[in-house]
């Protein structure tokens, strides 16, 4: 049962075919001369050229990247600060805060999006503003912060609390101890949280749909394109996104592999006894 049998291999291949077939079809037809989604007539890069001249898409891309970047940074700061406070809370307070934090994670995106729309429309009775980049940003920060908190919290749990005392013992006041010792230890959690926020922001559709007002994210632009005429520009866009994601994942994987190798090398050297 622990051997990798031929049938389990075949099964995996079938499932992966299922997962990747539509993507590869999209990529394939991005090079199609005609607009047809089903008949391949000839090879061309025209659709890519058109894509780069498509103002709506380009503007949406800028909006997406800007929102993702700003929202991730804000969410990381807000979330890390929250995690710091949370780990010092008593049981009951922590329980309450964490449960409310889970709400955007667990709630269906439709509900979160709609609830924020209600908030904004209600606020417009009192304040004068338009739904647009600002409301989009606020919404993104809101659904990103919980992921940052959920990434940083475990780092605090794993922390050896004698590290903090050691810092005090060696002459640090509490603030110094935090910045010189605690912060470096929880940094992996902060980084992970930041990257998760970035990913969720770039990929988000539903919540942006309800809160973006006049502005457009890439997902929303794609949505409007798919509602209207069919254009292989979408295929071209898909191919580019796929290539970008693939590159990022490969880079991350190589980094992991390299750090693993160096760690095991050090272990061999450091295993000498006194």
């Amino acid at each position, binding site marked *: 049962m622990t051997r990798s049998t031929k049938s389990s291999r075949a099964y995996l291949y079938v499932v992966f075919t299922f997962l990747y077939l539509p993507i590869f079809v999209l990529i394939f037809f991005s090079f199609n001369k005609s607009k047809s989604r089903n008949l391949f007539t000839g090879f061309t890069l025209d659709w890519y050229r058109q894509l780069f001249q498509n103002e709506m898409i380009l503007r949406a891309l800028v909006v997406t990247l800007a929102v993702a970047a700003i929202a991730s940074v804000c969410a990381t700061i807000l979330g890390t600060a929250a995690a710091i406070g949370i780990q010092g809370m008593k049981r009951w307070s922590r329980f309450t805060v964490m449960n409310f934090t889970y709400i955007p994670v667990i709630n269906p995106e439709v509900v979160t999006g709609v609830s924020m729309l209600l908030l904004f429309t209600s606020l417009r009775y009192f304040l004068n503003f338009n739904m647009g980049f600002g409301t989009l940003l606020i919404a993104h920060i809101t659904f990103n912060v919980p992921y940052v908190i959920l990434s940083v919290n475990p780092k605090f749990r794993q922390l050896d609390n004698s590290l903090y005392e050691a810092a005090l013992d060696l002459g640090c006041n509490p603030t110094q101890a935090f910045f010189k*010792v605690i912060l470096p230890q929880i940094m992996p959690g902060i980084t992970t949280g930041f990257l998760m926020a970035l990913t969720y922001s770039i990929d988000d559709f539903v919540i942006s749909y309800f809160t973006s007002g006049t502005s457009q994210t890439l997902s929303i632009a794609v949505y409007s394109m798919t509602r209207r005429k069919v254009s292989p520009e979408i295929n071209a866009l898909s191919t580019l996104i796929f290539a970008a994601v693939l590159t990022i994942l490969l880079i991350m994987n190589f980094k992991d592999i390299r750090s693993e190798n160096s760690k095991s090398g050090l272990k061999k050297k450091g295993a000498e006894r006194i």
Partner: protein
Amino acid sequence: MEKDFIVQLDRISVSFDQEEVLNNFSLDIRDEEFVTLLGPSGCGKTTTLRVIGGFLMPDSGRVLFNGRDITSIPPYRREVNTVFQKYALFTHLNVYDNVAFGLRIKKKPESEIKKEVTEMLNLVGLSGFETRKTSAMSGGQQQRVAIARALVNHPKILLLDEPLGALDLKLRKEMQVELKRIQQSLNITFVYVTHDQEEALTMSDTVVVMNNGIIQQIGSPIDIYNEPKNAFVADFIGESNILPGIMHRDFTVSFAGKEFICVDKGFKPDEYIDVVVRPEDIKIGDYKTAQLSGVVKSTVFKGVHYEMVIDQGGFEWLVQSTLSEEPGTLVGMNIGPDDIHIMHRNGLDGEVDEVV
């Protein structure tokens, strides 16, 4: 010449979750001594250490350092450094930066830091390890980094919280010798916490035996071993046989149904007392002529000696001898007067009584 007291705990009380760990606890520690707080888990020894270090504010009582009240002074302003049980090394820094940490906080110049760190690494036997990552080192090496990191700050007192617990036996014994050597060469006070009585006896100038937050006995290792003040100390330190007895008059005691000559005096006539006899002090002899006789229940070879359990009149004696007898054999046991230790009966719950 006896040194002054460098640390004095004056009627310290500490409780956790309604439970009292230390109650009106007082202790004086002399300068330049290797002092060990010894006792079972939960006896309050680590709590005492943390009070000295400043990590715990006592509910009442004072901590005095060279006569000055430092009770409310936080750890980062005490001239005390700590070696933590799990080393607490900063994994994001290499060995050099770990050891230099305290000096950098004090904003010492880098040239001076380099000199101090190099010297200290040399002292603990880790020269050349400066750029190593702490996670790539063995337990013993990490230990030494922790010690170096603490000592490089030239504290007046070094606190050590069961630092050798995670090491294997051989390494532990080597480190015990190392620590003693370092303490003596630096001539500072070490306050060491452990539950291992052998460790305490090996390294200490003074041993403080604790139980339930109360000091059972303070003394040199030899005193504690040879003259335990109560049944708890006798039982905790080394192996011992403890039985009830009656002190009839000076130098005469009876226990196990027989009368013995001993070397203690000053008790009330026919006072009920506890008798302690170390297993290695019992001599095996001919059961016809010996003071006590019993049946061997088990014999185990321990390398250094044989360990036998002998049933004598219902009491199971633990005997260590280079001779061995088969289980089931009737043997005789002799105890010399010097080897009979008398303790007052009510010393168990912690009052420190005087033993003559």
